[in-house]
Structures are given as C-alpha cells and as structure tokens.
C-alpha cells in the first residue's frame, strides 16, 4: 500500500515538474505572443500591461477571465488537450490562440442541429 502511495506521489510530482508556465502580455491592444503553444497541465498567465481594461474570452472553451484592469493578470491551467481561439470581448479586434500539443480539432462554437 505504501509503495502505491509513493508511486502516485512520484507521478504527481513528475506531472508538476514538467508543466510549464507561459506568459501572454496584453499591450498595445494585442496579445503577445498571439499564439501560445502549450501542453495539458501547463499554466498560462495573461498580464495586462496596456492602458485600458481587457479580458480573455473563449466562449466555446468556457474561458472567461473577467475584466483585467491595467496591471492585473489572470492565470489559467490548460486541463484538456483541445486548442482554442480567444479574444478580448471588449475589443473584438484583439484575438489570440492557445495551441495545445497533441490534440485533435480545435473547439468551435456548436452549430445548431438540423431538425429536418
């Protein structure tokens, strides 16, 4: 039993050890880098260094940071192996993408099903 606990602990440690932290800077009305490549378990921190309020929103992926005032940041851990596009819903011209390695198709808004 003890060995199982140790093994599980080691696995958890290993998972934590390989998870990476990524940083996306919001400045000049843009997300930089525009595309961030991650693995499941990685953490992304968006930092608002701009002069106005922004947010990070991806409705289809359930991502919603809420308002990030200048100087504020928001952290998100990628739990699923699915890439997604996001935007600042306050300034829809600002877009970005989280590209998850080893995943299938990106999340897209669900299309209405035909009833015919």
């Amino acid at each position, binding site marked *: 039993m003890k060995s199982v606990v140790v093994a599980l602990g080691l696995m958890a440690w290993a998972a934590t050890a390989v998870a990476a932290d990524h940083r996306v800077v919001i400045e000049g009305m843009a997300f930089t880098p525009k595309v961030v490549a991650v693995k499941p378990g990685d953490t992304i921190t968006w930092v608002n260094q701009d*002069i106005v309020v922004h947010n990070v929103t991806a409705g289809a992926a359930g991502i919603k940071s809420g308002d990030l005032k200048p100087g504020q940041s928001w952290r998100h851990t990628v739990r699923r192996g699915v890439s997604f596009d996001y935007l600042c819903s306050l300034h829809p*011209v*600002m877009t970005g993408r989280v590209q998850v390695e080893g995943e299938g198709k990106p999340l897209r808004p669900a299309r209405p099903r035909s009833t015919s």
Partner: protein
Amino acid sequence: MTIKKPLATVLCALLAAAPLGAVHAANPNDAQIAAIVVAANTVDIDAGKLAESKTKNKDVRAFAQRMVADHSGVNKQAVALVKKLHVTPEANDTSKSLTQGGETTRDRLKGLSGHDFDKAYVDNEVSYHETVLDALDKTLIPGASNAELKALLVKVRPAFVAHLEHAKHIQAELK
C-alpha cells in the same frame, strides 16, 4: 494638390462632419498637446455617453460604452502624467475647436434617432479616429518634446487603431 489647413481647423471640421483635409503641423508645445489630448478624449467620451442614452442597437451601445471607458482611462493617465511633470494643460485653438466641434456634433446627433442616429454616430466615430490618428502621427507624437509625454502618446495610438477597426466593422453592419 494638397490643401493644408491648421490642425484646429481640421479637427473642428472633422467633428462637424465636414470634409477632411491634410493635417498641417501647428507645432503645439507640450502643455498645448496635453490640452489637445484631454479635449479629444473628452469629446469622444461625451459622444459615447449620448450614444449610450439614445441607441437601441446592442453593438452600437457596446461600442459607445467602450469609448467612454477607454477614453476616460486615457484621460486619467494623461492628467496623471501632466501632474507628475508639473505641466498645466494650456488651452489653444485646437483644443477649443475640438470642444466646440464636439458640441456641434452632439447637437446634430441629438436631433436624430433610430438607424439614422446609429449611422451618424458610427460614421463620425470612424472619421474622428482616422483624423486623431493622423494628428497623432503627424503633429502630436513628433511634436512632443518630453519623453514621457511622447511615450504616452505612442502607447495610446494602438487604442485608436483598434477603435477605428471596431467602428468600421459596425459601420459595415449598419449599411
């Protein structure tokens, strides 16, 4: 042939929805630039507040709310900077014309409603942001002598670009 006009005349004409000409550098000093920046933002804040109260279009309302919030944020930073630099914004022909032109535009918009209002407001927003960008590039940024003031203007510029793109998108939808 390019017709050159003083900056004040052009910005005033812009806000009254008159045809635009090329922006001629009027060589304002830093105190005057500060006053122009504050006046330009205030004009768009006031227009946004009017749009918030009049429009029934959700996209126009969201855009107007964004203009009020963003330009208020820019003004807050501009005022904080001039205080730090011990610069007193100096009213000048351009800042006065901006304020007067803004009032003229709001009076015109107040007489409109529905789609006519939305279209006139958004058309004016496109022209406004285009001309302020032109003024930033040709007069305000090159003319600022204080490094921090110049840096703030450079930092503000992308917001005007994004607002312009956003306004053009809504403008296309309203046609």
